């Protein structure tokens, strides 16, 4: 057991899997010798050799095309896309190929690839280093979508992704790489070493995909979130005193609907928080499912707190970011409603 931040936990997951399974390969832009621009693959090339962890040309479509071919030939490639904003050049390989290969061949071929990519804003990254595209991928049948909110989960979920025989997108909220960001950029960041979920086994373990985590039980309102927003929601619950039951989805697809439905049926109220743009974001899907399964339990309209429907503006990222104040207002409002 060690104290790890998210970067170290991800590195540890990759390390364990490289060690356990000779078919695991790691690659992406700058991930080899250099160890990745966020250092998630640091030391792995030195430890396992250049054939197990290497740099690729700058062509996200090529990276995933190659990964799919490797996956179809028995390997378990783990590709890094340097920023989630740069997944789009690989969109066709993901959507038309990785996601469809098993189906169109009726199970003859498949590609067990994992795509890791840092997402989210709050690091002054501007509009092309801050996006949260997870919602888009949940609309594509054949892909799994995962986003951890802490080092312990990050490691356990990433190992599950690598072992999964379906293509999985593993989004890493870069704002919490180093600590559980409470949503206040003007306060000092608490390091993961001071957080219970920063306690991470060095050895292999896994957390199943498709299982949400109730981070904080509560009875007033269900707060559904994932990634960075888990910590923002915790702050908001603390600040407002509203007894929120905070659900960290961990996996968006497959979704742990049972957990959500049980909670909302209990609380009758719901606030959904994500950093991605609002329109057609994953929050919409959650509301659609909630009203289908909890309609008669709802005492107030569920509220979405999300990024605005604009690119992430460099100078106004804290006006864009759905921080504790906005979440808190939603919590207060959802309690006043009805």
């Amino acid at each position, binding site marked *: 057991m060690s104290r790890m931040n998210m970067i170290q936990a991800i590195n540890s997951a990759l390390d364990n899997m490289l060690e356990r399974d000779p078919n695991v390969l790691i690659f992406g832009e700058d991930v080899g010798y250099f160890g990745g621009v966020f250092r998630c693959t640091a030391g792995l090339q030195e430890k396992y050799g250049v054939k197990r962890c290497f740099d690729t040309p700058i062509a996200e479509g090529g990276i995933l*095309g*190659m990964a799919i071919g490797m996956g179809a030939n028995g390997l378990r490639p783990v590709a890094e896309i340097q920023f989630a904003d740069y997944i789009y050049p690989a969109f066709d390989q993901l959507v038309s190929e990785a996601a469809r290969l*098993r189906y169109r061949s009726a199970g003859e071929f498949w590609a067990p690839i994992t795509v890791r990519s840092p997402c989210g804003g709050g690091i002054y990254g501007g509009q092309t280093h801050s996006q949260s595209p997870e919602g888009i991928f949940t609309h594509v049948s054949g892909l799994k979508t995962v986003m951890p909110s802490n080092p312990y989960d990050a490691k356990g979920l990433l190992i599950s992704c690598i072992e999964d025989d379906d293509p999985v997108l593993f989004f890493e909220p870069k704002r919490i790489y180093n600590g559980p960001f409470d949503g206040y950029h003007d306060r000092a960041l608490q390091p993961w070493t001071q957080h219970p979920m920063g306690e991470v086994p060095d050895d292999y373990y896994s957390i199943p995909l498709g299982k949400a985590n109730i981070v904080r039980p509560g009875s007033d309102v269900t707060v559904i979130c994932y990634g960075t927003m888990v910590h923002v929601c915790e702050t908001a619950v603390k600040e407002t005193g509203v007894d929120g039951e905070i659900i960290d989805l961990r996996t968006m697809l497959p979704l742990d609907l049972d957990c959500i439905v049980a909670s909302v049926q209990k609380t009758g109220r719901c606030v959904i928080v994500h950093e991605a743009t609002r329109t057609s974001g994953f929050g919409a899907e959650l509301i659609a499912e909630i009203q289908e399964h909890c309609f008669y339990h709802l005492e107030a309209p569920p509220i979405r707190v999300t990024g605005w429907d604009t690119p992430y503006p460099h100078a106004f990222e804290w006006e864009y970011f759905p921080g504790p104040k906005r979440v808190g207002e939603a919590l207060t409002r959802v309690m006043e409603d009805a």
Partner: protein
Amino acid sequence: MADETLRLHLPEPTTRPGMDPDASMIKVPPAGTLPKPPLDEPDDKMWDYALGMVRVLDDDHGAVGDWDPKLDADTLRKGLTYMMRTRAFDDRMLRQQRQGKTSFYMKCTGEEACGVAQAMALRPDDMLFPSYRQQSMLVARDWPLVDLMCQIFNNPKDRLQGKQLPVLYSVKGANFFSISGNLGTQFPQAVGWAMASAYKNDSKIAAAWVGEGTTAEGDFHHALTFAAVYQAPVVLNVTNNQYAISSFSGIAGGEQSTFAARALGYGLPGIRVDGNDFLAVYAVTKWAADRARSNNGPTLIELYTYRAAAHSTSDDPSGYRPKDEFTVWPLGDPIDRLKQHLIKLGEWSEEQHEALHQELEDEVKRDLKEAASHGTLGVRPCSPSTMFDDVFKELPPHLRRQRQEAGV
């Protein structure tokens, strides 16, 4: 510069429907002129191969030059048989579509030498990443036609459970990768597959195909870049059949250079080969495969041929090219050329040819009867509930709920 007015160039073919077909702009070098280079020839010594054309069969049906693969007559007859079986299959299936027995079909008429000779030059366990016009490779790998027909009919013997459009086969048993409806996507995948093979210190190589039209896709560039960077053991092929649906090859960049030449910029050898010359295709493919298998790196092959039929059953070429263009095509018919060569060798005759033709017709008819006995368009391949299978390895809860809602 006196005149500073910029002008936009739009490529246009020399002929259109209603005009006399014209092939005068096609330069066909004589057979046997290019020598066969060693497997580790530096790529900058190979430009003539990218801009010229490797040809073995000469105008008198003899095999000439360094590239002659010197195949024995049995092998040649086998190749001829595969080509003729492919054509018989195509003709028969086109008719099935016209009769409403399938929603869709695509012929490879005129391109049979490409697929058959390449399949024979590769090893059975080399992995093929085909396009939709590579049925001849399955034929040459002795895959039962009945199985393909059942896929086309989406009947209960369709191994793909009706999930795929007709002809978009997936035949793992023949090391023939699932064909994608999306053009070009399989090109970088083949590179990745080959890299995995090299990573595992295996001896299997990969080969992939795109049409000349598809070379414009980014995937083509990704494949060549990654293949060059990692020296992947892969044979990358461009079937230049002169057309991409209605667009002549100039729309893909064929006015400025050959498609084999694309390789040059990556420091890879590119070879253009007479795609209607069975011997040349075999020899060039074998050379590229040997090169890949001996860790000398990837090769790009341009198979210069002609799409004699329509793009697909949804297409009518009389809308965009002279009807009889095929008759002026300078490289002839691949089946006829191999037949004449065998006859010249004294290993074949018109009578044998006619007999074989009849035999194959009968065989395909028999196969068709068997396949159709399991049902044609409109029959249910299996329970509609299978529609929810294979999206993921295991059925996730939301699909279980949807399956229930569908009541299937």
